[in-house]
């Protein structure tokens, strides 16, 4: 949980889009912004933003990560919450930024920034108590929890709570919901075969639910799971189950 975060509805929030959403899944980001704006919140998206810095940080290049982190902190300087549609990037900004700036005179500003970071589903449930009117057909979905959303940001039931608020959506849980899908950022290219073995098991688990769509709050995981299913489909090992960021799903179900 973001400690000092107010739980009253703010009039303005920052939106940090994350690099994967920016380049590969922009619809997820757009949907999140739509959801927030529909609640009457003014969303500010600093156009100078880029990446949270996690890739370099995790690979052992803290100087390079620090430069990128500092860039975001300076950009998001107003006292508004920073809503992040990824538990992993939120975890980096909320939990790892302060240790990255240990002993640095810039630390107080970093700590202020970090305390304002909140993961999207936590914001939607805990701050906005978002009401949802489901306009979609009955559908069965499954949910993949990202490791960092659970274990760094402490996201628990919030995403499922949102899904429960959609009257026509049935959630079929995974058997190993808490197990990593094998993405792990650069781990996926440093140890592609191990990463693949993990993705393979995750995909099998997803298939076994019989769900039509797999949802997640992290696009890194979705990219890993989705491209694995595409490869499976190419070799006739199973069809592609639609993977979607929860923001996009919520927006689709409730808009129109």
């Amino acid at each position, binding site marked *: 949980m973001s400690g000092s975060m107010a739980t009253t509805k703010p009039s303005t929030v920052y*939106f940090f*889009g994350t*690099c994967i959403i920016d*380049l*590969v*899944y*922009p619809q997820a980001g*757009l949907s999140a*912004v739509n959801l927030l704006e529909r609640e009457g919140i003014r*969303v*500010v*998206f*600093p*156009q*100078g933003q*880029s990446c949270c810095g996690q*890739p*370099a*940080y*995790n*690979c*052992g*290049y*803290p*100087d*390079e*990560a620090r*430069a*990128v982190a500092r*860039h975001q902190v300076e950009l998001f300087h107003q006292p508004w919450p920073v809503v992040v549609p990824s538990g992993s990037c939120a975890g980096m900004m909320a939990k790892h930024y302060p*240790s990255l700036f240990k002993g640095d005179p810039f630390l107080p500003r970093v700590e202020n920034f970090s305390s304002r970071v909140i993961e999207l589903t936590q914001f939607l449930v805990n701050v906005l108590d978002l009401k949802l009117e489901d306009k979609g057909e009955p559908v069965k979905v499954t949910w993949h929890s990202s*490791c*960092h959303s659970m*274990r760094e940001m402490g996201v628990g039931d919030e995403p499922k709570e949102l899904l429960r608020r959609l009257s026509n959506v049935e959630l079929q849980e995974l058997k190993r919901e*808490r*197990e*990593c899908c*094998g993405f*792990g*950022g650069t*781990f*996926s*290219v*440093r*140890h*592609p*075969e*191990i*990463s*693949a*073995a*993990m*993705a393979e098991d995750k995909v099998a688990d997803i298939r076994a639910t019989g769900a039509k769509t797999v949802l997640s709050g992290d696009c890194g995981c979705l*990219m890993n799971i989705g*491209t*694995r299913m*595409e*490869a*499976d489909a*190419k070799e006739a090992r199973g069809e592609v189950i639609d993977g979607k960021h929860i923001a996009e799903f919520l927006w689709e179900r409730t808009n129109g």
Partner: protein
Amino acid sequence: MGNFGPAAREALKDGQLRSNFRRAMDGLMSKRAALFADQDEWTRLRALGESIKARALAQLPELLEKLEANCRKNGIQVHWAETTAQANDIILGLLQKRGAKTLVKGKSMVSEEMHLNAFLEGHGIEALETDLGEYVIQLDHEAPSHIIMPAIHKNKQQIARLFSEKIKEAQYTEDVDALTGMARQVLRRKFREADAGLSGVNFAVAETGTLCLVENEGNGRLCTTVPPLHIAVMGLEKVVERLEDVPPLISLLTRSATGQPITTYVNMITSPRRPGEKDGPEEVHLVILDNGRSRSYSDEQLRRTLQCIRCGACMNHCPVYTRVGGHAYNAPYPGPIGKILMPQIEGMEAKGELAHASSLCNACVEVCPVKIPIAELLVRLRTEGAHARADAPVLQPGAERSTAEALAWKMWSRMATSPTAWKMAGTMAGTFDPLMPEAFGPLADWKKGGRTRPRFAKKSLHRLLRDKGVPDA
């Protein structure tokens, strides 16, 4: 340079191995979960365990001296070894002094770290493993694949076949009790005949000079009481301050390790046989090994590695370990604890690569009973591996550095701090995606993982939100 990558790839091809590990780890995870069902109790006990180990580490030099003094008072002789070679020599000396030819061993991971068995064999001394799992792998000339369950990579059928081949007059059977019985037959005789016994130590109590040893088979008790000479080996991080520190740690250890409320045997060794006592060894020696631990101790962050109580829960919950098994790590300590400990013990050149064998999923961090920030330490070790510096608390800092990678991060950092460059990259990626080759650079590796290439969106989020008129400030 190590060989984790190729070894892991080989292991992944072995379907039998993968299913053996999967099944075993599933069982261990659910047994542990059942014993920590009460979240509040878990949180409290774990905080207590962490504080006990942290308190011990905060006064480590003093506690070790105290331990030595109190052991001596009790008649236990204490020896210090800075390196594994020194520890091996000390043990050899003790055995030779008594003319010992055979040594029965209880489970000791430190002795694995020392490669003690091979060393003694080279000097004509037979070292026989008596823990059932250790016995199994010794028969098959293998190394342990797990720190608690060394033969966990083998299933019942594989053990049955091994016994029928290697134990004289043994019939093939898959009956677990019968198999255990066969091993017991062999081992009982060895216990009676052995010239010396060796054991590890789970906790050494400074204030009383007590060596605590938990085990399930009674082999530990036999090794430490039947032969006339008992040698205990431990890493220097095993010392705790007080006797009352032990029960919470044992509870955390056995529940985390095997999902047992307590082990069948809890041995508290305080002295050799005293006058008038009917059993117990004539001599007890304690060998305390450093092997790089004090180097880690000198660094506030790395020091936390020394909190480890070797429960193995981190490997039981590790998605990488579960897939590749223990042998791929080519290290006495595999899995998450191995990934942080081995680079510190053996150096970045030989073992730095292990710090990268993780998706940083934090599953280990969640279950570690003494709250070692394993993921944080992995990142720290990756950093040490990528940067050479004079006063680093690791051996061969910078050994993992690749010029190409360093340059790539530098360029990435420039791009991600320049709004124009970043937006341009987004536009280019989207525009030229259809023309991009299917596999180059990291994407080639991505595809090695049996995945298609991700597609860049035509319009980036930056662009979509600008078009939508979302304010920038």
